[in-house]
């Protein structure tokens, strides 16, 4: 066991010394290349979550490319980062198996997981080896409440996202003169939909909204006609859906076909409502849909640059890309501060990350980890306007004004 833990340390330490010796012996002429640092990237690229996993991988890849092109990890003599990719196969066993393989290959940390069940199982497997695990997306609050010292989440958890969603909804509604009073909740019956709906049921009435009905649907669902008809008869001011990509696309198209037009659609962590594929393929159905979700900071120049690179590959700009990009940058930042590719040193450095970490592109406050959760992490409100996804809240990150209630017609 100690051998395997040391595996990650020895070469890079040696490399560091070699690098230093080389630099001393022949400055600028003969610099020994330090051994690369292996970084595990875990994403579900097959199975139900393949699309998200693929985009997560692209984000991590772009970050690693950028790091390597800009001189690697400087504190380690410019060591390059080598990606060890693992396919989590959209299930927890797949994630665990890949963590074991990455451990055998001697990675210094693991980034990714995407879905909460994968993150839960994989971070737990990594904790056996004191292997730092950085969750990219998984929002379940159980992830950071287990007391695992190796597990970090840079992005916000479900509770904080829901709180932001509720606060911003009230602000939005108040600013528009309180046009919305009645709500219909539509949610998928799995992990996140049910949880989100339950929180809404508890939190919306005290804030002055009346819930007319809560409608659940399975994932996958092939037909939304009944739900649309039910919504028409209830005639709510606001629809709050929590569904995955296909189901929400189906629902919004069905609503559009049947000319059901509430004052707004306010989605929470929706799979489609801030997804460019939806915007491109169904611009009319997507127009003016609001979402509370992960999103990159539109004001940072790097965001636009990264977006261009992704779109140059004929891909859409999804939040998985900036989130994984930022998580990899977080590891790089910790490596710079740790000064050695040692797992425990990296864990300590990660825990001490503060506002000086600015190489990420998320719209977050100063980084500050408490029990592995970044307190600066937050979700933002987006709205689809003119075939683009715009940030409308919080105001300090916004690049557009909200359009609410929807204009008639």
């Amino acid at each position: 066991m100690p051998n395997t833990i040391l595996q990650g340390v020895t070469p890079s330490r040696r490399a560091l010394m070699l690098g230093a010796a080389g630099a001393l012996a022949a400055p600028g002429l003969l610099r020994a290349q330090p051994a690369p640092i292996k970084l595990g990237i875990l994403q579900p690229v097959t199975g139900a979550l393949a699309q998200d996993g693929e985009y997560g991988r692209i984000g991590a890849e772009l970050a690693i490319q950028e790091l390597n092109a800009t001189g690697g990890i400087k504190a380690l003599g410019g060591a390059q980062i080598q990606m060890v990719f693992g396919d989590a196969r959209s299930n927890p066993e797949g994630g665990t198996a890949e963590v074991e393989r990455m451990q055998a290959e001697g990675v210094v940390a693991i980034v990714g997981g995407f879905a909460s069940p994968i993150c839960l199982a994989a971070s737990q497997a990594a904790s056996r080896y004191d292997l730092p695990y950085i969750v990219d997306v998984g929002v379940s609050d159980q992830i950071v409440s287990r007391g695992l010292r190796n597990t970090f989440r840079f992005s916000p958890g479900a509770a904080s996202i829901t709180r932001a969603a509720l606060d911003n909804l009230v602000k939005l509604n108040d600013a528009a003169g309180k046009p919305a009073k009645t709500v219909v909740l539509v949610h998928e019956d799995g992990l996140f939909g049910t949880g989100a709906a339950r929180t809404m049921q508890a939190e919306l009435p005290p804030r002055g909204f009346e819930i007319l009905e809560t409608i659940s649907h399975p994932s996958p669902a092939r037909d939304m006609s009944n739900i649309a008809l039910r919504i028409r008869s209830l005639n709510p001011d606001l629809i709050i859906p929590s569904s995955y990509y296909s189901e929400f696309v189906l629902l919004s198209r069905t609503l559009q076909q049947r000319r059901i037009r509430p004052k707004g659609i306010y989605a929470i962590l929706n799979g489609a409502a801030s997804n460019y594929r939806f915007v491109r393929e169904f611009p009319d159905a997507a127009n003016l849909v609001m979402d509370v979700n992960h999103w990159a900071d539109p004001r940072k120049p790097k965001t636009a640059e990264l977006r261009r690179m992704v779109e140059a590959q004929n891909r859409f700009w999804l939040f998985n890309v900036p989130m994984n990009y930022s998580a990899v940058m977080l590891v790089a930042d910790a490596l710079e501060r740790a000064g050695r590719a040692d797992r425990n040193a990296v864990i300590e450095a990660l825990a001490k990350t503060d506002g000086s970490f600015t190489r990420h592109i998320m719209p977050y406050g100063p980084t500050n980890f408490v029990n592995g959760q970044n307190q600066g992490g937050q979700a933002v409100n987006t709205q689809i306007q003119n075939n683009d996804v715009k940030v409308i809240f919080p105001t300090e990150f916004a690049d557009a004004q909200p359009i609410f209630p929807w204009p008639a017609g």
Partner: protein
Amino acid sequence: MKDRQLALILGFAAVAALVPFFVTAGTWLNFAVFTLILCLAAQGWNILGGYGGQYSFGHAAFFGTTAYLTAVLQSRYGINPYAAFAIGIAAAAAVGWVIGFLSFRSGLKGSYFALVTLAFAEVFRVVANASDITGGAAGTLIKLDVRPENFQFASRGTFFWVVLAMVVLAMLLTRALERSRLGAQMVAVRENEDAARALGVDALQVKLSAIALSAAITGAAGGLYAQYFLYLDATIAYGTWISVEALLAPIVGGAGTVFGPVVGSIVLHSLSEFTKSLVGRIPGIDLVIFGIMLILVVRFPPRNIPGLIRRWRSGR
């Protein structure tokens, strides 16, 4: 012949028990543990499907019941994990008996029985997904607390031995069943239920015993899964994936034999691992190759792997 079988079982146990001494890489031990857990689930299916001739498509109902009870009893009620595991196995047997009673008494056979079991498993999945006690859709987490008295071991090797012991126990149980009166009655019911009944076999009783035993063994696999991965949600516990895993291995390895499920699951999972290592870059291509190999294995030899060996031996 029979002694050779016993020798084979013990030989398998002895060789497999040595694995953790030679294989220390977590990757391979993890693979071995997971394969053996699914092997145990398949052994359970084999009792009802292989010997009893009742093809269930819903063994997830039993897998999930023990898994959930093992997890929920210890995490919510502080019951000792071993006790929770035992209660879970008993509950799975009871669930099996009830499902059997409801469907066999109505005379459901063949594909109708398969569909009913599938439906039961789906009902369990939806209920587990919606109720509070299972943690709903957020799932149930067993607290990481690595102590042997907690059924959590620091070394994957120890867990491997625990699972191996269960698999060998199930093999011995299957062997004993094969030679027992009940086993003979099960085979008689499988081959011709009317004839068996005419000879005085209480077919309903025989099938109920078969399903309860079968459910208990598959349930044990579920409990081990929960204890190993420490996280459960409704799709893991009651999803169709485990029903398929449970029936695929015996069918490939030879249903209604002691070694069938063991051979089947080892071959299937090694094949899947092999194809995974074969192709690196294109995601999912290994699954395609695995699927094609599976079609070939099931389609071409006379029924299964033992059939292939027999054919090869007889020189045809």
